[in-house]
Structures are given as structure tokens and as C-alpha cells.
């Protein structure tokens, strides 16, 4: 059983290129969408079975010249849920573009596939420069997806996002240059050896961490996210909010666990990030509660949910000393996974709400419970996952993280995690309340295209029920 990891990047790119040819578009989308999804799942199963990291050198060139790709439990898991979200959003888009934005469809699929390729490349990359290139692919494709509706608000949000994102990418490259100047290598497993011998990498931390915080919208760099994620069309919002903010946090976990030495000065860095994460949870949830439109609410909720991934950075530091590495990695992965699926489902369901009521105020949210049970259950399951109601994927993630933080007596993390759930319940509540409302003028009998309803429901259902099979899903991570 073997797999050339390069295909995981090549197939989405091919699909994107072929989707530009008008007559071939739907065939390209079907064939390459399914192929890419199949490959991602195959890679996931391979990482489950293999147990230890699988290295490959692109084109047979070994470092320092060649580019290394690495597949292990962590990257396999991220590849897998990226594919799940892409398939869900892809199915939704097949219905979506039949009813609206028809003239945007050809461009959408191109950027859909290139975003997928960029994410796969990011999760598989093993050297820091290749990660920079993938980050740039993500910035460019995500920037264009923000501008897709073509109205002034979207173009402005896209421009702001793109400029900030390019700025952050170059800061990242600056940090990479400092590392290369000090150690003469960019490959992570080679750096892991040299970092423990000299502390020069500490100089690169400021540009690297600022850049990754901007990219994943950590408080106080979150200001670009709500306009960018709320002003575009529903499938693009779903991709951006569920997936595009994840890679920087993933890289931070990866570098901390695998590359950074046990260095006392890193503890302060980890606490700064942890406190900013806590602030992101409080401010993100506070602003989410105050929003009047559903897409802004969901965008601020992304700020809050990303906060969890940074809140637990002090745990990475502790995990280098205590026997809880696996628990922390599992908690991180489960949180990223359940948030990605739940947020995608929420954004798709909000697209359905806008489809029937033509407005996106929360107070105009249709009473889906009485007319469109699939969309209602999509909102119900994904909301439950965001809050972390028992049995959901989000519950399992928070449970693991709280367990890990109490194990090393970090009460602060545990308490913020619990408060965060409470705040999430407060911003999810208005969505549930309105979709259950009985008022006859809020019950629309306009049918929503079947694909749009089923895909939103499926993503929400998988996010919720993943809590039940989390043990199976997470077994690959014990080898990381």
C-alpha cells in the first residue's frame, strides 16, 4: 500500500484547470472532486494503518535541494476533514449556482479546487518555505473567493483581507529567512535537531507568531475576518470560515510539538498566545451575541472558536514535560475538526435562510422547523457542536482539553473553556429561537434545492455524531 503524496495536490489543481473549460466543467468537478476526496481518505487510512510518519521527497530530490512531504496521523486527519468539508460545500454549490450568481460559477470552481490544493499542500509540507508558498496560494484563492459576489462591500473586504494576508505572508518569510540564516536548513525534522543546540530561533519568533496570528485572526488581529467572511456567497463563506483560518494554528501546534526544544523562554511566549486566545473567546463571543445579521454572528463565532486553538498553547509547552502530548493533540484536532464541519454547515444553512427570506437579519430568520426540517436540523446539530452539548464532536474536544488542562493544574484554561461554551450557547440561542418560531409570516413554503438542504444537514450531522466515533477517528494521532 503506497501513495505518491504529490497526487493529493496535483488532482485538485487539474480539476481546477479543467473546470475553466465550459463544456467540461461539471464532469471535471465530479471526476476530480471525487478523486481528490478518495485520495484524501486513502491517505487518512494509510496514516491510520502506518502508525508512524511517512516521508517522501518530491521528484526524488533529497533535502536541502528537494521538497519534503510528510504524512502522519495529524496531517492525515486534517486532509480527511478538509475533504469532507469540500465535498459538502461542493454538493451545496451544485444546487446553489442553479438559483443565483450563475455568471460566477466558472470562477468559483477554479478557486474551489485551488483552495483545496493549497490546503492539501500545506498539511503535507514538511519544510518551512513550501509552507510559505502554500500560505500564499491560500491568501490569493481566499482573497478572490471573498470578492466573488462582485459588489462594492465584498471587493473592499477582499482587498483588505488580501493586503493583510500578503503582509503576514512576507513577515512569515522574514522569520523563515532568519531561521535559514542561523541553521542553514528549512526542513522541520532537521531543524528539530539544531534548535536544541542554539537559541537563535528565538529571534524569528516575533515575525512568525505575528504572521500566524494575523492569518488565523487571533485577537487583536481579528478585525479583517468578520467583513471578509460575511460579505461573500454562502459556499465561499463556509470554506473560508471553516478551513482557511485553520492552517496557521495547525502549523503552530506542529512546530511546538515537533521542532521546539524544551526551552524555558518559550513558556512566556506560550502564555502570551494563551491569554490572547482567551481574549479572542470573550470578545469574539461578545460581538457575536450583539450581531444583528446571521453571517456576522457566524464570523465572530469563528473568531471565538479559533481562540480555543490558541488558548491551549501553554498546554503544548507543558506537554513537552508531562505525559499528555496525545491528549492535547487529540483535543486540538477534535476542536479544529468539529468547528470546521459545524461552521461550514451553519454557513450553508444561513445561505438557505437567505435563499428563502432574501434577508440575512436574524430577526427575519425563517421558522425552518415548520417548513424545512433538514435545514433546521443542520442548524440544530451544528449549533450543538459549537456549544459543545454532550455527545457532539465539540463536547468531546472540550472534554479532552479540559482534562488535559486540569491534569497539569492549569485551572485558567479549564475555566475559560467552560465559560466559552456558555457564551457560545448565548450566541447560538437566537438562531435556534428564530428557526423554531411559529409566526405565520416567518414560515416560507418556498422549496430549497434538495442538494442545498441535504449537504448542510450532512455536515452538521457528521460534526455532531463524530463525538460518538471520536475514539476510532483519533487513534491515528497516538503515533504523532
Amino acid at each position, binding site marked *: 500500500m503506497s501513495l505518491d503524496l504529490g497526487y493529493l495536490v496535483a488532482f485538485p489543481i487539474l480539476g481546477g484547470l479543467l473546470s475553466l473549460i465550459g463544456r467540461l466543467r461539471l464532469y471535471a468537478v465530479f471526476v476530480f472532486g471525487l478523486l481528490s476526496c478518495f485520495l484524501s481518505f486513502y491517505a487518512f487510512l494509510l496514516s491510520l494503518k502506518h502508525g508512524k510518519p511517512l516521508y517522501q521527497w518530491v521528484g526524488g530530490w533529497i533535502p*536541502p*535541494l528537494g521538497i519534503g512531504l510528510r504524512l502522519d496521523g495529524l496531517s492525515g486527519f486534517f486532509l480527511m476533514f478538509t475533504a469532507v468539508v469540500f465535498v459538502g460545500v461542493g454538493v451545496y454549490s451544485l444546487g446553489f449556482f442553479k438559483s443565483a450568481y450563475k455568471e460566477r460559477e466558472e470562477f468559483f470552481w477554479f478557486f474551489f479546487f485551488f483552495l483545496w490544493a493549497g490546503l492539501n499542500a500545506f498539511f503535507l509540507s514538511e519544510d518551512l*518555505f513550501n509552507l*510559505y*508558498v502554500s500560505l*500564499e496560494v491560500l*491568501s*490569493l484563492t481566499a*482573497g*478572490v473567493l471573498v*470578492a466573488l459576489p462582485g*459588489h*462594492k462591500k465584498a*471587493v*473592499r473586504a*477582499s*482587498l*483588505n483581507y*488580501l*493586503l493583510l494576508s*500578503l*503582509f503576514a505572508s*512576507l*513577515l512569515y*518569510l*522574514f522569520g523563515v*529567512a532568519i531561521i*535559514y*540564516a542561523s541553521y*542553514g536548513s528549512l526542513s522541520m525534522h532537521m531543524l528539530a535537531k539544531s534548535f536544541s543546540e542554539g537559541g537563535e530561533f528565538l529571534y524569528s519568533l516575533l515575525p512568525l507568531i505575528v504572521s500566524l496570528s494575523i492569518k488565523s485572526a487571533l485577537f487583536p488581529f481579528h478585525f479583517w475576518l468578520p467583513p471578509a467572511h460575511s460579505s461573500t456567497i454562502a459556499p465561499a463563506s463556509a470554506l473560508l470560515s471553516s478551513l482557511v483560518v485553520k492552517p496557521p494554528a495547525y502549523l503552530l501546534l506542529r512546530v511546538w510539538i515537533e521542532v521546539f526544544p524544551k526551552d524555558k523562554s518559550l513558556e512566556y511566549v506560550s502564555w502570551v498566545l494563551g491569554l490572547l486566545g482567551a481574549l479572542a473567546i470573550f470578545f469574539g463571543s461578545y460581538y457575536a451575541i450583539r450581531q444583528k445579521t446571521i453571517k456576522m454572528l457566524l464570523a465572530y463565532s469563528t473568531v471565538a472558536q479559533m481562540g480555543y486553538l490558541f488558548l491551549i498553547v501553554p498546554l503544548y509547552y507543558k506537554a513537552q514535560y508531562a505525559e499528555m502530548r496525545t491528549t492535547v493533540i487529540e483535543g486540538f484536532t477534535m476542536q479544529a475538526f468539529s468547528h470546521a464541519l459545524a461552521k461550514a454547515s451553519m454557513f450553508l444553512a444561513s445561505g438557505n435562510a437567505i435563499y428563502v427570506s432574501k434577508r440575512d437579519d436574524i430577526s427575519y430568520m425563517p421558522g425552518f422547523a415548520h417548513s424545512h426540517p433538514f435545514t433546521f436540523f443542520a442548524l440544530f446539530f451544528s449549533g450543538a457542536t459549537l456549544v459543545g452539548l454532550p455527545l457532539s464532536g465539540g463536547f468531546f474536544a472540550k472534554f479532552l482539553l479540559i482534562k488535559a488542562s486540569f491534569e497539569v493544574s492549569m485551572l485558567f484554561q479549564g475555566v475559560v473553556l467552560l465559560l466559552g461554551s456558555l457564551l457560545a450557547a448565548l450566541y447560538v440561542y437566537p438562531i435556534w429561537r428564530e428557526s423554531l418560531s411559529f409566526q405565520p409570516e416567518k414560515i416560507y413554503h418556498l422549496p430549497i434545492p434538495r442538494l442545498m438542504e441535504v449537504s448542510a444537514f450532512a455536515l452538521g450531522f457528521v460534526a455532531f455524531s463524530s463525538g460518538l466515533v471520536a475514539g476510532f477517528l483519533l487513534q491515528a494521532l497516538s503515533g504523532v
Partner: protein
Amino acid sequence: MISFYYILSFILVAVSVYHFIAAESPFKRLIAVNILGSAVFLFFLTTSKNTPSQNPDPVPHALVLTGIVVAVSATAVGIALILSLSKREKDES
């Protein structure tokens, strides 16, 4: 001599970060991003002299070349967005 280039690149980084934060107009911010790019590339290239042997290290050259290509295409997307934004603003007024 080497340290001159390092200092120059740090000054350019500082200038571009300042203008990126302070400038209002998106075009100025795009230029600031480009200056940051040049500063980082200059820094990266200067490090290629950082080898024990007489010959410069070729890897930074290859990486900077890739970086320049990415920066040029990113600038093109940025300019396209700025143009489309100003067109929409003109249409409204």
C-alpha cells in the same frame, strides 16, 4: 560590508511596516507590502554569503526567485481588486 545590507533590510522592513499600518489608501498599502517583500528578499539573499566556504549558498537565490514570482502575481491581484473597487465607487457617485 555584509552588515550594511542587513541594516538596510531592517530599515526597509521598519519603513514598510510603518506605512502599511499608517497609510489609508489601499494602493499605498500595496506598495508598502511590496517594499516589505524587497526588504525580506534582500535580507534572505544577504544570508547566502553566510557559508564557511568562499562560494555563496545557492538555496536562498532559488527561494527568493520563487518569492519574487509569488509577490508579482499577488501584486497583480491586488491591483486588479483596487481597480475594480475604484470603478465601483465611481459608478456610485
